């Protein structure tokens, strides 16, 4: 999964969201349509054009007290509107590690 850390040219080919890590604790968050952040992918603002993605990313990056490392990530929007991560990296960020942790929560 190519790291999206350096997104210079913004060109999306399908539905996408902006994701980042919350500044104070680092958890994975998604930019919402209300210009906030949510830990739930279901709450994320979906963009479908490169122009919209650019606007959403710029707004997200500007809020670096709220979250850091913002970037655009692909998603799949299933029938019925359910949003799923678009690749393994994002699936792991969304659902957690694919292994059992040494100490269960």
């Amino acid at each position, binding site marked *: *999964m*190519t*790291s999206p*850390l350096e997104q210079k040219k913004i060109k999306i080919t399908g539905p996408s969201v902006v994701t980042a*890590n919350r*500044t*104070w*604790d*680092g*958890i*994975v968050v998604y930019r919402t349509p209300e210009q906030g952040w949510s830990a739930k992918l279901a709450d994320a603002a979906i963009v479908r054009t490169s122009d919209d993605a650019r606007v959403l990313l710029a707004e997200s990056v500007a809020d*670096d*007290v709220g979250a*850091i*490392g913002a970037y655009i990530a692909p998603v799949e929007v299933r029938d019925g509107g359910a949003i799923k991560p678009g*690749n*393994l*990296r994002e699936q*792991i*960020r969304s659902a*957690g*590690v*694919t*292994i059992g*942790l*040494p*100490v269960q*929560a």
Partner: protein
Amino acid sequence: MYAYDELDRTLINERVSEFRDQVKRRLSGELTEDEFKMLRLQNGVYLQLHAYMFRVAIPYGTLSSRQLRQLAHVARRYDRGYGHFTTRQNIQFNWIKLAELPDALADLAEVGIHAMQTSGNNTRNVTSDQWAGVAPGEIEDPRIWSEILRQYTTLHPEFSFLPRKFKFAITASAHDRAAIKIHDIGLRLHKNAQGETGFEVMVGGGLGRTPFIAKTIRPFVHGSDLLSYVEAIMRVYNQYGRRDNIYKARIKILVHELGIERFAQEVEEEWRQIRDGALKLDDSVVEEIRSRFTYPAYEKLAHMPDELRKAAHDPHFEGWRRNSVFPHKMTGYAIVTLSLKPVGGPPGDATADQMDALADLADKYSFGEIRVGHEQNLALPHVARRDLPTLWKALDKIGLATPNVNLVSDIIACPGLDYCSLANARSIPIAQELTRRFSNHDTANLIGRLHINISGCINACGHHHVGHIGILGVEKNGEEFYQITIGGRADENAQLGSLVGPAVPYAEVADVIEDIVEAYLALRANPDELFVDSVKRLGVEPFRERVYATR
């Protein structure tokens, strides 16, 4: 153990206060992330996939039981109850909150532990042989020199903004357990023809995107000249190392592009100017550092006590002893390596409960001392051989007696795509599957010494280039694939592995590794020929034919 003085304690405490203020300003928005990033990195704080990751240094791999308990405390209070020991004698906590980091640092500072320079473009944690000071045949304890280098490099103003990170490793044994040839500067303590002790200095080793084995730049440098000589190297690097391209910024690239002879000329010229200056190390300075290392009051003990003789009838104990217990410089004592590679477990992870229990065992059986090795295992360095059977039972109860040290399931692996923001593919599940495939101890012993190293990306934190079998995760069209190399090694005969065939998908990796091992068992000249020696003798082709013919 090395005893910190007031200066060390003040330095660490001031650093905690400074970072507390920086975090406060960051959380209030006074500092932007761009302004803060370098500050957090200089304190070992990365941003990974799910959270911040906090990397704590364990200089030259030596820990006291008190320090280990404090690491357990940090794991429990600020993280998720475990830590991950890395290939550079650090421990990483994967789930730490930025807002709580100053408190975690303050707790660590109470026991003399810090995270300074565990990231960033500066000199990183100075690593050494985890058997330093106890290995038979060692020239002298390399930690003395590691500590001198640690003090010299910590917050060194001239080397706080190098072109890229810079790593030292030191050994004083003929057998290199510190992987010095894959470091920016590798130092080997040895005696010259006149019987004087000094250093063979190697430079330009490193893995990552462009791997190189270090080259000897000077076969002998006296201890008194060590700092001026390494300063000369670092000055040349600081001046000429590339800052325009992160992928070409390490000293290995400079050494490669200039050639070792030209690079050495530059260093000699610089050294000539500073050699007899302030960096000349007086014997008194070295002795002062040496005097702050305390050594156990060993007893006079029998090499083969009754307890050991009796326990030898237990095949489970013997299986563990054969692979985990190593000779000690003192008669009647042993070095015990503790595998952090249980079957199905993530390599290098230890829970807070294990750390606490091990600290207690270290107090009882190892003069309160624990070591951390680059293979992501721990060691108790001073165990009386009469205590081995009792210790084994106690280690078994806490899951630290897996008898696989140096065997096929003693796998080095980076955190991979499960944790790391740089990774292309997962490492840990591959390691877990391989430990299950090779969980039969008889089979593993039949195979013998075999190091599998796994990295989830080209940055090579899992040292895949120098694994006897190296596995590198790559991405192909959105899928995880793995390139496999064989014939690498990280010891005194360090060598980079060679590709054995095309990359294979995630689901096939364990099958391919099993086939490679089967090929080795069929091809080896005799049961004593190690895997890596068979590859050296035969080359890659016979393995490729057997493993890939039907794929």
